[in-house]
């Protein structure tokens, strides 16, 4: 009787070892479906392209989450909701936002002060600022994501962020 018990244990252990080795090799050799995961994460991000996470846009951040295991709590515009959804998707722990959640806002150019330098226009990640050299610029409010990237380049400090609604 003992032999049959031992042989059963040995067989099961053997199968487990072989299967484990196979799976481990497959995970290393075969390419992962990371592009699809990146897309899924990108869809959950708010697409403000504000770079407040430290990456140059939402998609780069999504790639960083997948490849470099970046924390999932770096997106202030997304707020706690986005952290929650990312945690659900990736099976990670929910973490509080690294920075406090901001209020939704859009950029407003004080047109009396604008000198038409085009610096803010070039900084806008979603082309929401129009204006030519030496002409007054303006923000297309409907397209502005409130990322604040246009504020620091302005040489005359004529851009302010105003709360939506």
């Amino acid at each position, binding site marked *: 009787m003992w032999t049959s018990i031992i042989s059963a244990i040995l067989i099961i252990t053997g199968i487990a070892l072989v299967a484990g080795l196979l799976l481990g090799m497959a995970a290393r050799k075969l390419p992962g479906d990371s592009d699809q995961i990146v897309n899924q994460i990108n869809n959950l991000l708010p697409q403000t392209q504000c770079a407040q996470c430290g990456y140059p846009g939402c998609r780069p951040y999504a790639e960083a989450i997948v490849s470099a295991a970046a924390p999932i709590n770096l997106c202030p515009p997304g707020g706690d909701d986005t952290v929650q959804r990312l945690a659900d998707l990736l099976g990670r722990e929910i973490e509080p936002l690294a920075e406090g959640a901001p209020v939704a806002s859009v950029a407003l150019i004080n047109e009396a002060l604008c000198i038409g330098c085009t610096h803010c226009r070039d900084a806008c990640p*979603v082309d929401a600022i129009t204006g030519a050299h030496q002409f007054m610029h303006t923000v297309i409010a409907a397209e502005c994501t409130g990322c604040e990237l246009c504020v620091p380049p302005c040489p005359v400090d004529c851009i302010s962020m105003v709360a939506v609604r």
Partner: protein
Amino acid sequence: MSSPAATYDLGKLHGGLRLAANKAESTVMSIQEVPVPDQLVLPIAQHVGEPAHPVVGIGEHVFKGQLLAESYRSLSAPIHAPSSGKVVAIEPWPVSRRYGNKAPCIVIECDGDDRALPLPEDIGPFNTLEPDSLVQKILQGGIVGLGGAVFPTGQKLMQAASMPLEYLILNGVECEPYISCDDLLMREQAAEVLGGAQILMHALGLGQCYVVIESDKPDAIGAIGDAMAILDDSRITLKQVPTIYPSGGEDQLVQLVTNREVPSGGLPTDVGCVVQNVGTSAAIFRWICEGEPLISRVTTVTGPGVATPMNVAARIGTTVADIIAFAGGYTEHAKQLIIGGPMCGKSVTTDRVPLVKATNCVLVLNETSRPGTEQPCIRCGECATVCPIQLLPQQLFWYACADNEAKLRSYGLTDCIECGCCDLVCPSHIPLTANFRNAKARIQELADEKARAERARLRFESRNERLEAEQQNREAELTLQKEAALKAGPAAIEEIMRRQQKKQNPDQED
């Protein structure tokens, strides 16, 4: 002359409630005309869609029927002056709306002359017009669905014209308690209602029309029957439906009359039907055949808080205070003012709000709230039995509390017509409809946010593509220049360098 018999062959409606009608008080008198008040207040958003765009300025004198605000963008309806006078302000004013208490309004100080614009010359028999131009004309009359949904009628017809259609259904089913304006309208203006039906059938190329009336309105059925006998139009049939709330809902009525179910998220046109309220039909007749745009409507003033309950014909923009004063004022029981019926109406805190195109009832109740305090759901399922859409309100409530958007969608929250049946039967007194309304708004908000994010993503990506293309162009240009320079040989390069140096130090001679 005998009126044709009403028919009974009907589909089935799930759930619904038999409610105390409370309509007897307001149907004693005929429709009374409210005199033109000193001041008219016209919100620029009286319809579904974009608010109309004012085309008059402050201080301008306007005639009755003159265009005050034109329709703006694709879904909108124009607004006309209900009487002659001077535009004194365009400013926020209290209105009865679901969200927010104030909205921009055009205020007219009436001069009392009630002078109308000269009638346009193209008033003639409607059937000489092409269906398309007829629809365009209806669009200009400012006519919207008067049953309460206030969807611009012209746009509804335009949408319908692109679908294969079978029936025009005139909705005379006024199922909500207290309201009786359509009943009185059918009794007194049956010819106009049927005339409107003929115009609609011509505009849509339809060969069949059902006029549907609830069984508790024998006078209206008689009046419409008599008018049909005079008109002698074999395309129009009278149908009678049992008195169950909410059989007057558009989709419910289609189900009752044709036994076809309007698909979830769809429209009656998906099953070959166009539904119009009888009041809308009469308004279309007056606009097309008499040249009068939608500047007045019949509304019910009733409830225990009104001295003489009645139906009145009032100009759009008359304040509710004026209308109630006309109906003898408030009684000492008056506690709560509701614009609309007791089930779907909105409670307002001031009677300064104007009568708008949507106002089918001004109700003054003697109690302020429903009896009973809210308790936890005991999952009895009463709400599911009465739901006319066959939704599961108890599940929806569960997911609304949990803010679970995906489940709310899959359980069909967006199909809820907010009829309030589940509220009434709930033994725990849970305000289900209010919960669903909030949940709907939240779902809409999420969808908007999603759409915005998607647009930002596309813009970001196209910008990156553009920058990359620019970079490549620049590099290609540089390589070209470099190649050209190399081809010219070292002598030419030296020559260029010398010229450069000379430019920098012009004094130096070589």
